[in-house]
């Protein structure tokens, strides 16, 4: 594996004990890019970010510059930073928020100027009070310095930043649900169309929603320029990418890497392989929503957005969950489906009813009360949420949460049919995993 520079995690590695402070941030070149952005036009900034190739890091991997260019002309416009990070397996934004909040704030200033925003919100999941406190302190420092508030950096540009805590709902990570939540409504996703945030977002006004990691990249794009930034990455996947590695690996953690390495390199070289000399059984390549990969087919696949998509899965938020050969896949699937059922907002029928039904059937199978028809039933219920079980899904739902629950079903029925049937025929889990 080639050597890779760290970019957005550099300050925290170099200066672990104070990378969150204004002093350290400024001592390491902080807020210079924000000042630079103050002197740039919206067009210049949008163009720069477009040409940097920066893709959103919240999961959908959509071009950040493109999204900005869609901002409708109505004003005021708003910027919302998505720090709701709740996809099982994902914990990278938590580190960025805790360890380098000024980097994100500088990104916010740049994104705000680019999108003519004077009111920005950082929506942090409620279960992250420590990251929120760190961000709030950094925001306070920035206000004190005149980098936020009225007339920032001595210009006549006002920028207010408000940290908003969530209340415990994964679905609020979905950008339109997040906007509803921020409006004081239930966190139910809105319909797209017509409610694309860049056109009709917060308070029905043009709104840019960007992930924490996405905006944390912005100072580096301004610093290095589009070409140099691109070169950090691999082909279409520009810049570096934070992988959250967890599950059955020797060295779980967040790793800032370029794309283009293989899964084998990530799991075995970076993650140190499977503990206890056990075998790799399968892994989730991009958060709980993603269909799983198995060693036989995918271990030497390059990690890129395209290659993962062609293999009928996705990189999503960069969460890689590794499962060894002691794992009961029915139980693993049940746990993931349970998550989506629990987190379904409940507004659309297939997700509200279908995910819960799937969870119940899986639990029955795991506990030994599976029926022969249940194998097909799992597939048919899934088919009602995601017609034809295609990738990307042909959703019958409003948002992708419902179809996410189908991913583990597709995975276990495709790669582990025998194991599922063994549960049904043997009246319980053949691995002796308790189903608590």
């Amino acid at each position, binding site marked *: 594996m080639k050597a890779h520079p760290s970019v957005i995690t550099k300050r925290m590695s170099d200066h672990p*004990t104070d990378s969150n402070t204004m002093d350290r941030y400024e001592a390491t070149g902080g807020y210079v890019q924000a000042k630079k952005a103050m002197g740039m036009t919206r067009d210049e900034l949008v163009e720069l970010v477009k040409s940097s190739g920066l893709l959103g890091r919240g999961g959908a991997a959509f071009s950040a510059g493109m999204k900005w260019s869609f901002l409708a002309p109505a004003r005021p416009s708003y910027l919302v930073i998505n720090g709701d990070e709740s996809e099982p397996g994902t914990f990278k934004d938590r580190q960025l928020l805790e360890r380098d909040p000024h980097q994100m704030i500088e990104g916010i200033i740049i994104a705000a100027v680019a999108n003519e925003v004077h*009111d920005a919100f950082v929506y942090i999941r409620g*279960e992250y009070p420590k990251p929120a406190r760190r961000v709030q302190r950094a925001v306070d420092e920035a206000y004190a310095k005149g980098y936020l508030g009225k007339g920032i950096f001595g210009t006549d540009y006002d920028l207010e930043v408000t940290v908003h805590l969530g*209340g415990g709902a994964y679905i609020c990570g979905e950008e339109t649900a997040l906007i509803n939540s921020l409006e004081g409504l239930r966190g139910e996703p809105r319909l797209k169309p017509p409610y694309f945030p860049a056109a009709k977002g917060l308070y029905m006004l043009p709104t840019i929603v960007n992930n924490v990691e996405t905006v944390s990249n912005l100072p580096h794009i301004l610093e290095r320029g589009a070409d140099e930034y691109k070169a950090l990455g691999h082909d279409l996947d520009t810049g570096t990418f934070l992988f959250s590695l967890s599950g059955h690996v020797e060295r779980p953690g967040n790793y800032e890497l370029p794309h283009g390495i293989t899964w084998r390199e990530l799991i075995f070289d970076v993650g140190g392989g499977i503990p206890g000399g056990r075998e790799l059984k399968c892994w989730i390549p991009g958060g709980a929503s993603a269909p799983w990969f198995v060693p036989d087919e995918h271990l030497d696949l390059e990690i890129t957005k395209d290659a993962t998509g062609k293999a009928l899965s996705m990189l999503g938020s960069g969460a890689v969950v590794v499962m060894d050969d002691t794992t009961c896949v029915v139980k693993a699937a049940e746990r993931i489906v349970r998550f989506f059922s629990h987190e379904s*907002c409940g507004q659309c029928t297939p997700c509200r009813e279908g995910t819960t039904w799937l969870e119940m059937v899986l639990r029955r199978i795991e506990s030994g009360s599976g029926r022969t028809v249940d194998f097909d039933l799992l597939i048919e219920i899934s088919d009602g949420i995601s017609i034809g079980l295609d990738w990307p899904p042909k959703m019958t739902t409003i948002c992708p949460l419902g179809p996410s629950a189908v991913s583990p079903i597709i995975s276990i029925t495709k790669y582990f049919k025998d194991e599922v049937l063994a549960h049904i025929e043997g009246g319980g889990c053949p691995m002796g995993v308790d189903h608590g």
Partner: protein
Amino acid sequence: MSYWSESTQQRAKEIIARYPKKRSAVMPLLYLAMAEDGHVTEEGMEEVGRWVGISPAQVQAVASFYTMYKRERTGRYLISCCTSISCMLLGGDDILHAVEDESGVPHGETDPDGLLSVEHVECIGACGGAPAVQVDYELIEGLTPEKARELVRWLRKARPDTVLSDEMQELFGSRTSFDWAISEGVGATGPYPAFEPYGTTGGDE
């Protein structure tokens, strides 16, 4: 006429002023209501409704959508055990069972003296330090069932005024998702997130 304390009312005003529309403050204000009453009461929801100009039913619709607005009596210490996929793979269920067993409090319930509430929760973003637990949303990573039992006993005995993540991690945790590096003396004062703008923090930096 609010039944909230002067300082809570002052905070409510400041929070509302941060948002272009009052209703946006409903979530922060629900935390204020929890801090006032220990959990989200009917009076609390009515009060929040008055502050932001919506009906109590609308406040309830919001409060009940989220998992953190506890509408039932909740212990001083809320122990949330993650049993989502990454934690489950590394023994999260065992941690939950140990906590339930040691405390005598099953998932979703509170002990009779109102000290401990126990729940299992979905992913809390600590997968790299699995299995993980939060007490009043302050995190401990890398637990074992034995350490989880110790945690329960310690909470019962020490009854800390402020729940500090670093202290608990030191006492009961091991592997973390990433290097925490920066220690912190601020923590939680009840079963709601400790966040300065909401006046819910204890301890000092």
